[in-house]
């Protein structure tokens, strides 16, 4: 199940993974953020990417989505090499993402923020189609659906800057979904959410996967990772130190020392999550 072997067969479309990364490395000056990462994501799965703070998770996401240029290695999306592409071009390949420190157009309404996510789809349509859709306001259907799905209807016309944190996260997820991506990348989508809210997001992500989207999920909430991920990648110091199913990965002694050992030193936000992870074991 290593990435290298799956990339080698581009002709069989079914074999082409949503993302295949080979020997990816990124250095900031002398600091190695991602050292030599190779993996591929199977289609229509949820893969959790976990690791202690500073392990290089967000850097890895920024490399995949084109916000950073890798120092070495290559990235392929659906069999097409996208190494060094700009973010908009990567997005054009059907990749949508959220950001760790929530990026929204603060002075715009919730509906407009979601509409921005539809841009790629609208842009690709022919001019004639666009002209025909002029009066029907293209993209509105998508926005309407997402407002319902993410329970944002009553704030649709509100400025996002005024919304509470959890809601802002949901707007970001809605914007990513508006692009109907084939690869959805979520960077700590449930940070700062209540337990009920994060469970809801978990169910939503599962629905998204079932509808045919591959999901890459960076998450500190261990309970959620156990509950929804098909597979888990563990990143430490810019290296993948383990890859296994969501249940078994915790048994790996390397992971225990590297990741769980580190978590005791973290702030209260992730502390309870770990305990919850233990208690809701059966549920997962």
């Amino acid at each position, binding site marked *: 199940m290593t990435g290298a072997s799956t990339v080698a067969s581009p002709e069989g479309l079914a074999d082409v993974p949503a993302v295949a990364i080979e020997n990816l490395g990124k250095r900031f000056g002398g600091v190695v953020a991602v050292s030599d990462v190779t993996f591929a994501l199977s289609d229509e799965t949820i893969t959790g990417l976990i690791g202690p703070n500073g392990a290089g998770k967000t850097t890895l996401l920024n490399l995949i*989505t*084109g*916000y950073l240029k890798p120092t070495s290695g290559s990235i392929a999306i659906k069999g097409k090499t996208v190494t060094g592409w*700009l*973010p*908009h*071009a990567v*997005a*054009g390949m059907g990749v*949508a*993402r959220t*950001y760790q420190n929530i*990026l*929204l*157009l*603060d*002075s*715009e309404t919730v509906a*407009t923020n979601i*509409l*921005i*996510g*539809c*841009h*790629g789809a*609208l*842009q690709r349509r022919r001019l004639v189609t*666009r002209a025909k859709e002029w009066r029907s306001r*293209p*993209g509105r259907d998508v926005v309407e659906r997402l407002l319902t799905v993410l329970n944002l209807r009553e*704030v649709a016309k509100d*400025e996002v*800057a*005024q*919304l*509470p*944190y*959890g*809601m802002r996260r949901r707007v970001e997820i809605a*914007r990513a979904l508006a*692009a109907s991506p084939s690869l959805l990348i979520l960077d700590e989508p449930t940070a700062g959410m*209540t337990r009920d809210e994060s469970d809801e997001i978990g169910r939503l992500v599962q629905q998204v996967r079932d509808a045919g989207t591959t999901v890459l999920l960076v998450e500190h909430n261990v309970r959620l990772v156990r509950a929804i991920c098909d597979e888990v990648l563990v990143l430490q110091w810019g290296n993948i130190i383990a890859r296994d199913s969501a249940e078994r990965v915790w048994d790996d002694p390397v992971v225990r020392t590297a990741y769980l050992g580190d978590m005791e030193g973290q702030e209260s936000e992730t502390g309870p999550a770990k305990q919850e992870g233990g208690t809701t074991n059966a549920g997962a």
Partner: protein
Amino acid sequence: MFDWLNPYTQLVAAGILVNALLVLSLFVVFQCGVLSLATIGFMADGAYTSSLLATKQHWPTVPAIAAGAVVAAVLAYIFGRLVLHLRGIYLALGTFALGQVFVLGIANFTWTGGPGGIVGIPVDITLAELVFVVLAVGVVFQLVHLSFVGRALRAIRLDERVAAGAGINVARYRTLAFTASGFLAGLAGGFEAFQTGVISPDQYSFVLLVQILALAMIAGSYLWAGSVLTAIAIGVAQQYIGTTDALAEGLLYGGLLVVVMILVPNGITDPRLLRRLTFRRLRPHRGPSSPPTSEASPSGASPLVIK
């Protein structure tokens, strides 16, 4: 159509509409977050191209003005691709220098008439034609504003990273806006030349840039109509106040620029400002915890706070 106005009023009105076109040329780039100071340079390009075509090649007025606008747009496209990858201050500086290169170039070649400029340009633009052009430009702006293109441009201004992540080709849209800006400035330059009949390089001065910039910043970068109305309102007000000497003009425009930047840095058409003015409803607490920072820090605010 406007025969009932006396010739002087017509001339003033035409000047105001030319200013409105220039303000729109800044609006179109400000809209996507590009602080371009090259507008006056493109205005000079448009004015000189159309005037030279009319006086030396005897082109009719309308094709000459159109050609001037197109030449300015082409120059904007070519140089825009070179400077638009710059950020913030560097972009302002790059576009400023770019605009000045055009004006100085024109002043220093002999075939452009040098510092003396060009005389004898046919004065045959009517006010009605100018009004028609401004309205037509307005219609295009409104269509763009409503379309996904307008939304993309605004998204780029508000957060480039978000725009790029949503598949918006930031570089392409910025180049598009810069080209449109060149076109409008060239158009304004052409109309001005055929209004006054005389042009010279020194009229494309830094002072003119400052005046247009003041109008554009007051209007803000959200509604195109705001730009046009601001240009008209201040132009008319200036007529009534009768400010013609340099000191009064300097204090008026300079003061306005400073005061507006302090009080409403996003201009008077800032949607947030309008929302706050139109319905000041007290909103109940929604959700578990309203983040404490939402009131204190407006979007785009720098974290630099000096106590």
